Each structure stands twice: as structure tokens, then as C-alpha cells.
């Protein structure tokens, strides 16, 4: 039996994904819908957690963004992201998680480009916006569709 962390969250999220996929016409739209949901969830997370207290008032550098992402991971998942890459692209911060909580034991076929964990893109985008960072976040790779890890790209505007 695969070891599932937080099965309640997973079951609820699986239901959300099923619902989104049944209501959308293509993968782009489904990804967008999941990001929208994430943005809405983001404000709730910002209200109910101590992210606000644990982070700097003003986020100005990519190092600050990286630190913020680490705090978000700590608060939401009680762990560190596998990698926060600030070097590869000048305008982006890439976050890698090899044990992503959202797509545990999810196997998708023929759905290349679908970001099962796009909800987290929306959450990140929303939390960054609350800290004054304008960014577009999207999932670049997903374990559910066969990648080794889940990867999000935070494109700073």
C-alpha cells in the first residue's frame, strides 16, 4: 500500500481535480481553473497561518522570495522544498519538490501538460501577492504525469 500523507486533504483535492476536469474542455483551461482555486485558497491560508509573522514586511529580492517559499513549505507541509533555484533564469525562481503532497500516488496517462498540483501555483501566487510580490506562477513539471519531481516556476513581474 503506498504511504499517503494526509489522506483527507488528498481525497478532497482529488475530488476537486475530478470536478475541474469534468467541467473544462482542455488542459490549459483545467490548469487555469486549478490555479484560480489556489488563489482563492491562498487568501484563507494567509489569514489562518502565521506566514505573515514569519516573513519580512517587504520582499524585494529573489533571495527574499526564496526564503518566503521555504517558510510557506514549512508552514503548509512541515518540510523544506527539495530545491529553490534562483540561478537558471534571471527573472524566475524555480521550486522543486520531489515528494509533493498534492499528487501522491496519482498516475496520469496521456495528459502531458496537465499540472495536477497547479492549485499550489495559485496558492504561491496569492501568498506572494499578499507580500507585495507580483508574480506569475505555473507548474512546469508534475510527478503525476511522469516527471521525477514537481516543479513550479515563479516568474517575477
Amino acid at each position, binding site marked *: *500500500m503506498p504511504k499517503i500523507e494526509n489522506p483527507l486533504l488528498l481525497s478532497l483535492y482529488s475530488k476537486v481535480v475530478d470536478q475541474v*476536469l469534468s467541467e473544462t474542455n*482542455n488542459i490549459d483551461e483545467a490548469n487555469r481553473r486549478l490555479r484560480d482555486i489556489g488563489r482563492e485558497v491562498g487568501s484563507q491560508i494567509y489569514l489562518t497561518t502565521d506566514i505573515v509573522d514569519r516573513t519580512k514586511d517587504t520582499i524585494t529580492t529573489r533571495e527574499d522570495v526564496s526564503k518566503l517559499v521555504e517558510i510557506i513549505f514549512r508552514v503548509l507541509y512541515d518540510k523544506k522544498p527539495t530545491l529553490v533555484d534562483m540561478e537558471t533564469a534571471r527573472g524566475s525562481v524555480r521550486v522543486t519538490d520531489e515528494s509533493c503532497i498534492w499528487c501522491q500516488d*496519482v498516475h*496520469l496517462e*496521456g495528459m502531458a501538460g496537465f499540472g495536477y498540483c497547479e492549485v499550489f501555483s495559485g496558492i504561491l501566487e496569492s501568498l506572494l501577492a499578499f507580500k507585495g510580490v507580483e508574480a506569475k506562477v505555473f507548474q*512546469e513539471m508534475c510527478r503525476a504525469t511522469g516527471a521525477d519531481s514537481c516543479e513550479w*516556476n515563479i516568474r517575477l513581474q
Partner: protein
Amino acid sequence: MAGDLERALSKLRTDNQVLGYSLMTKVGRPFISFSFPGDIFPRVKDSIKLYKSDLRLMTIDTEKGLVVLSPVDANWILTVLYIHELQLGVAIAKTKNVLRLLEGIELPPPPEDFEDSAEANLQVLQSIAIKAASTAPGASEAVMTSPQAKSLPSVAPAPKAAIEKQSPSPDDFYVLPTTIPKKGETHSNALSLDSVLCSEMKKVYRNFGFDVLMLVDGSRTVTQIAESMFQPNERVASFLKWAASKGIVALPEAKERTPEEKASPSMGRFVKCPLFEGDLSKVKSEDVPILKLCDGSRTPEKIAEETGSPQVRVIQVLALYRRLGLKMIGKAV
């Protein structure tokens, strides 16, 4: 050669921050120029003379603007005049971008005698290149193909026919952040300033289209292109879809999709199908009929129907064999 050179230089011509440029010989004689103020040439020539073969990349702050000099090869120097307000780093980066485009073009050495900055110099350069190619052993094939680029206006009607032939709309193409766009049939035509396609592209996308096309090389992903331009993926993807509909770029993923998928934008119904790859000899005999059908193509409902078992019973069996490696495969059908 001339077409490629023209295309590379057109990048400068269409840049609002470029006041003028000149392709100069190694001794500082202007060969091909565009809006480059004549009174700056002596100063540029002096600078070139000063550094001679040691010239790498040099900037001169003049009353007309910022001049960036950079050697293209042993015979040629590219000189670009930028507006005063432009940051030095940006000016250098812009010049380097054009130099990158010139890298793949083999420019022949300048003729011994020529008129400074004459319009016909481009053709002179081309005829030298063709002559050199025709005297080189085994080069006849290359010469046979080169006349296509001989005169830009003469090739203009052909791409027009190509545009008419292609009727897909931008929505027929599918672009993901990981998609690697390739150059399409009309790519070079879109970069030719006098083509209909170029005018159409400029009308809709202005210089943005040029910039994206310059980065389409068959190896960069949409994300990488967007990142190097500091632009959102969506904007780049939207342009690429348009460009694909005109044959300017080719999107491999779109080609790989089946005609059914292409015809319908819908991805179908999302289902989860159990897949059991374990050893059937180790499972209880009463569960075998259900597990035999767990091949990743049937839903639990379908399995229940085919085995005549209640759906609850199927779910019970599936749950039981999760620990023996049974997976649920999500897919759109």
C-alpha cells in the same frame, strides 16, 4: 547570404532605440549604413585605428548618442548608434544579439574598391560570395540553391501562396510551457521586411514578434523564450499559435495529436482506471476475474459490469490489492 545579413540587420532597423547602424570594414570604411550620421564616422574610424586588431567591443559616447562597436569577423565591424537614454548594458546586449545572428553568416571580405555606404553594396557583397562559392570545389549545389535568396522582392509571391494554402487558426495549435517551437516554412519570409507576412506580423505584434522569432531555434522551450525576453509565457504562446497558423513556426506537439484530438478541443471525460501488474497466481481465486480486467483501460464501473459483480465488491477488491501494487491510472477518454 544577403538575405540572412539583411534579416540580421533588420533587427536593428526595427528597434526604436537604434538611431542608425553601419557595417564597416576593419579599417573603418562604412560599407552598408542605415541612418548613421556621417559626422560620427571619423571618430569611429579613429577609434578603430587606435585599437586595430585588438578591437573587441567598444562604446563611444557621442553628442548624437551611444555608439557600440563590435567586430563581426576579421574583416567587418558592426557599429550601432543608440539613443542617449539607453543603458550601456542594454545597448551592449542588443548589439551582441545581432552579432549572434551574424555568426552563422559567412561574409566575404570587402571588395577593394567600393562607394562608402552605397545601397548597392549589399548586392556587391552577395556577388562576391556567389563567385567565391562557385569557384570552390563541390559548391555548385550550394549555388543552385542560393538564388532563392538572391533578390528578396522576387521571392515575395511564393510565401503568399504558402499563407493561402495554410488555413488553420491559432486555436488549432496547442502550446505548453515545455513545447519547443521550430522554424516553419515561412519563418525567413516573416523576417523579410518587404514581405506581406512581415507587415501583418508587425501590425499585430510589433517588434515582439521579431524578438520571439529570433529566439525560435528548435532547442528553446516556450518558457526559455519567455524568460529570456522577460515576458509571460501566455504572451509568447499566443504569438506562437498565431505564427504556427501562418506556417512561421512549427509546433511539434500539435502535429503529434491525433486528428480526432485536433478536431475537438475537448479532452474528453476524465476517468480513473485500475492497473494491476502483480502476479495473478498469488491472488485469491474469487478476485481473479476482477483483477484480470484491471489493465488500466477499464473503469471500476466497467469492470463491475463485465464481471457482473456489484460496484462495491469491485472497490473492495481494488482496495485490497493496492498493497500489492495496484494503481489507479487517471486519463481522459
